[in-house]
């Protein structure tokens, strides 16, 4: 990365929203008040903003430290003309590190080839919220980054006008320069840098914006990710790639059962391994309710990672397994299924579904099961921390750099200004790297050792000590009247809650989890009942790409296809019938708890059945729905709103005589509102298809005697290139700024597995109600 001198003046006062409200991080920090919104508005004098045609409210204002749009914070211009733009969100493959600076560059009319992107450290008071999860980066920061670029452009124009002694109306920014419209004179951005940086930042309500028709980058798909060259040459820096003098390498033997602890250990043989420096107990905490605190165990520190692993293999450890030593996935499934059949909490009620079921001409009922998953990022968790007398410095692949900083400061009892968190590239995230336990481990060891310590998780560690995607049992019933019309839908889910990781004893779904496909379905059915059964957690439950939308979407989208079969209807027609006519479906008053709308205001992101309907129609049309297929082939469809985006998927499957699945084609229809980088949207959905296929075919983390039975990619397999969908077409619904931007990173996952299983049913007549598919087709 080119080093650019900061030519900007000291940060000026600027428009900024700082409202601390609710986020995954913020919610859990106050976990006792789940669902309660705690508003601490700190609105600056220049933040009053009329809801004009170019601005709308988002949930970004409610995230910790809100949003910042000050060009003095995000942009510096070197006298040579080189522009440096700060990327403050973490890059884990979604492209936000490119796309957000691209918005700034577009609106300030910078030449992208003269832009350098630098990664911000964890500093939310300066940059605004940095929690890179929830498919929020563009959704929340498109507007602030556009404001930032617009303000910079206006400051450059003002500086040029001042220099020429003409009114600002006589000048206009062009590509990386300002032009005097009356005489054609030009001043480059480099020449204007110092003067522009001394200009006051324009107030948000005075900003003017480029005509979208003149965009060079936004919506074009012509900008490559900024790390592309470094990635293809091995020069990109991930978590384990930071070279720091004197650093040592550690691996930790963690309790094999979550909640266990070390009784005693013998390091004699481990210390004989060449390269091993030290063996020591690693401090640990016993879940549930311990958030991201380390599990503890025995650490082996060596001069390289391989020696540390070899040393760990030689450890002799006696463990106290603790209360989860009987956790057994087979037995627990039965418990969950019983809970889903006898749920004790109503979460949504429209009409009287029980009565309608009783009087229905026909009742269709089915049960579904989805197991625990692990994220299995290609880069296993890794963190480097240097604790000195001056404080702590971190280099790590983290999705929540400021959350990491807060947690490490608290753990090491340091003031937060004595902790610095540098963010490397993330070798995949998917939610795993929102949890900073691996950094906390390194911090404790560095403090004890007095040298920089890098803690590397092995693949086995990653699969056996993760924050697992929940396990879920669900039961769905539909009542159908004599005319074949669905008059009642009753959906019950029992699944351990993520809240249990933050608060011991939590045993029902939070609004955040209910809002992911249990209570928010915009269906045209007069009687709807959604229920939640009690479920205890015996493992650390965390969020995994698209979270509770995976089980909820799998069950309901499979069930609608089952209904179609029972009623002799086409599955696409059945889906459209259930969605019903275009309308805003406001079910908020039908809910027991407050609707969690992905943190977004209802008015800007209501639940729109028309948009869901349109993507279903679009995916079907693009895929050639209804065409005749050879024996052993079939198509399946699913449509699901998540992260305020509307997604439909059609999967074309071939199943051979031995039950082997191949996927010649996938069609995604994506309505994510206004979008910046269609090339990265396509890559996210192509990737979601692969992740969806992996979880449908293979993914299951199972426990026996409290221990995870999987250990590496041989028994927790991933889809590989030879079984990947051959072609995934991504059809993005065109949208203008008036269609508010929504999420892209996660929402491609939920509809894939049900669309696949519906296709398998069409191909074979076999219905998959329990994931993974495994050998069910053999």
């Amino acid at each position: 990365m080119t080093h650019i001198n900061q030519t900007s003046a000291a940060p000026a006062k600027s428009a900024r929203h700082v409202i601390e409200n609710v986020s995954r991080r913020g919610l859990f920090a106050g976990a006792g008040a789940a669902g309660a919104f705690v508003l601490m508005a700190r609105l600056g004098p220049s933040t009053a903003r009329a809801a004009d045609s170019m601005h709308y409210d988002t949930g970004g204002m409610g995230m910790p430290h809100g949003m910042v749009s000050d060009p003095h914070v995000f942009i510096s211009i070197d006298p040579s003309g080189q522009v440096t733009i700060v990327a403050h969100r973490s890059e884990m493959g979604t492209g936000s590190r490119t796309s957000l600076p691209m918005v700034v560059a577009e609106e300030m009319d910078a030449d992208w080839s003269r832009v350098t992107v630098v990664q911000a450290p964890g500093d939310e008071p300066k940059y605004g919220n940095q929690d890179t999860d929830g498919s929020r980066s563009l959704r929340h920061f498109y507007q602030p980054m556009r404001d930032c670029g617009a303000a910079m452009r206006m400051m450059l124009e003002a500086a040029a006008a001042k220099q020429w002694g003409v009114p600002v109306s006589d000048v206009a920014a062009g590509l990386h320069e300002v032009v005097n419209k009356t005489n054609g004179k030009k001043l480059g951005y480099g020449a204007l840098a110092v003067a522009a940086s001394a200009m006051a930042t324009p107030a948000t309500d005075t900003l003017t914006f480029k005509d979208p028709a003149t965009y060079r980058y936004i919506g074009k798909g012509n900008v490559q990710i900024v790390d592309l060259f470094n990635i293809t040459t091995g020069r990109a820096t991930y978590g384990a790639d930071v070279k720091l003098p004197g650093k040592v390498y550690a691996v930790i033997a963690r309790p094999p059962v979550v909640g266990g602890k070390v009784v005693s250990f013998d390091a004699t043989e481990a210390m004989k391994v060449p390269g091993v420096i030290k063996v020591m107990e690693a401090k640990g905490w016993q879940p549930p309710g311990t958030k991201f605190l380390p599990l503890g165990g025995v650490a082996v520190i060596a001069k390289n990672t391989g020696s540390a692993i070899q040393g760990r293999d030689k450890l002799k450890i006696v463990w106290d397994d603790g209360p989860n030593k009987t956790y057994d996935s087979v037995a627990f499934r039965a418990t969950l299924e019983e809970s889903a059949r006898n749920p004790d909490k109503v979460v949504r009620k429209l009409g009287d579904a029980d009565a309608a079921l009783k009087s229905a001409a026909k009742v269709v009922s089915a049960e579904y099961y989805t197991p625990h998953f692990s994220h299995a990022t290609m880069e296993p968790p890794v963190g480097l921390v240097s604790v000195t007398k001056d404080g702590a410095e971190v280099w790590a692949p983290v999705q929540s750099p400021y959350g990491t900083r807060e947690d490490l400061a608290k753990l090491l009892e340091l003031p937060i200004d004595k902790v610095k968190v540098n963010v490397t590239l993330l070798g995949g995230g998917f939610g795993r790297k929102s949890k900073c336990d691996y950094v906390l481990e390194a911090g404790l060891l560095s403090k004890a050792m007095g040298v920089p310590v890098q803690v590397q998780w092995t693949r086995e560690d990653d699969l056996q000590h993760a924050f697992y995607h929940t396990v879920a049992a669900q039961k769905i019933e539909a009542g159908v009247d004599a005319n074949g019309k669905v008059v009642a839908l009753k959906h019950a889910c029992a699944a351990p809650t993520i809240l249990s990781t933050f608060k011991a004893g939590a045993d029902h779904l939070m609004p955040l989890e209910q809002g992911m496909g249990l209570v928010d379905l915009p269906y045209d059915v007069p009687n709807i009942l959604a229920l939640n059964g009690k479920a205890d957690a015996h493992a650390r439950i965390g969020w995994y790409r698209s979270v509770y939308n995976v089980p909820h979407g799998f069950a309901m989208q499979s069930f609608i296809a089952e209904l179609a079969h029972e009623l002799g209807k086409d599955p696409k027609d059945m889906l459209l019938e259930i969605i019903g006519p275009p309308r805003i479906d406001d079910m908020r008053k039908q809910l027991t708890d407050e609707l969690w709308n992905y943190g977004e205001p209802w008015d800007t992101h209501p639940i729109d059945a028309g948009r869901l309907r349109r993507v279903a129609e679009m995916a079907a049309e693009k895929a050639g729905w209804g065409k005749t297929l050879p024996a052993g082939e079939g198509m399946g469809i699913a449509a699901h709103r998540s992260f305020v985006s509307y997604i439909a998927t059609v999967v074309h499957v071939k199943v051979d005589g031995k039950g082997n699945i191949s996927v010649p084609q996938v069609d995604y229809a994506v309505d994510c509102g206004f979008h910046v980088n269609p090339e990265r949207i396509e890559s996210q959905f192509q990737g979601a298809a692969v992740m969806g296929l992996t979880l449908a075919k293979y993914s299951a983390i199972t426990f026996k005697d409290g221990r995870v039975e999987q250990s590496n990619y041989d028994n927790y397999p991933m889809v590989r290139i030879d079984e990947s969908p051959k072609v995934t077409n991504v059809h993005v619904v065109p949208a203008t700024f008036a269609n508010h931007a929504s999420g892209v990173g996660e929402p491609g996952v939920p509809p894939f597995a049900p669309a696949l299983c519906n296709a398998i049913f069409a191909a074979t007549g076999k219905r998959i109600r329990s994931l993974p598919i495994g050998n069910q087709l053999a």
Partner: protein
Amino acid sequence: MITLNVNGQERKVDADPSLPLLWVLRDELGMTGVKFGCGAALCGACTVHLDGEAVRSCGMLLGEVAGKKIVTIEGLDAHGNHPVQKAWRQVNVPQCGFCQAGQIMQAAALLAKTPNPSDEEIDTAMAGNICRCGCYQRIHTAVRVAATGV
């Protein structure tokens, strides 16, 4: 001391012969383009060339590779412009990018022996390399582009 030939240079390593080559390259020699993904030769993130063959460096021991020619992603092309690297950029393959050095080394070894592979040969050769982000469609395209000229 064990002497290795890495990217055309002699490198002396003071480590136990039982140490996997991966960790020698990464932690002792600073070749951090070589990635750790599984440690069990199941994912391909650590792929390097050993006398021209694509191998998983996590499964090779230091004592086995002395005297052999090792090429890592850092040494594939002095300017980062191997046809496979150029194809990867042309097709915009990476998402997170972590597995891509291994993918590129695998593809380069394939094309060195099979300059014009069939679709099936591409999939067979690349099936040892996992991409959790799911870039496979573009990986396949990029190998084809590299084979036919960038």
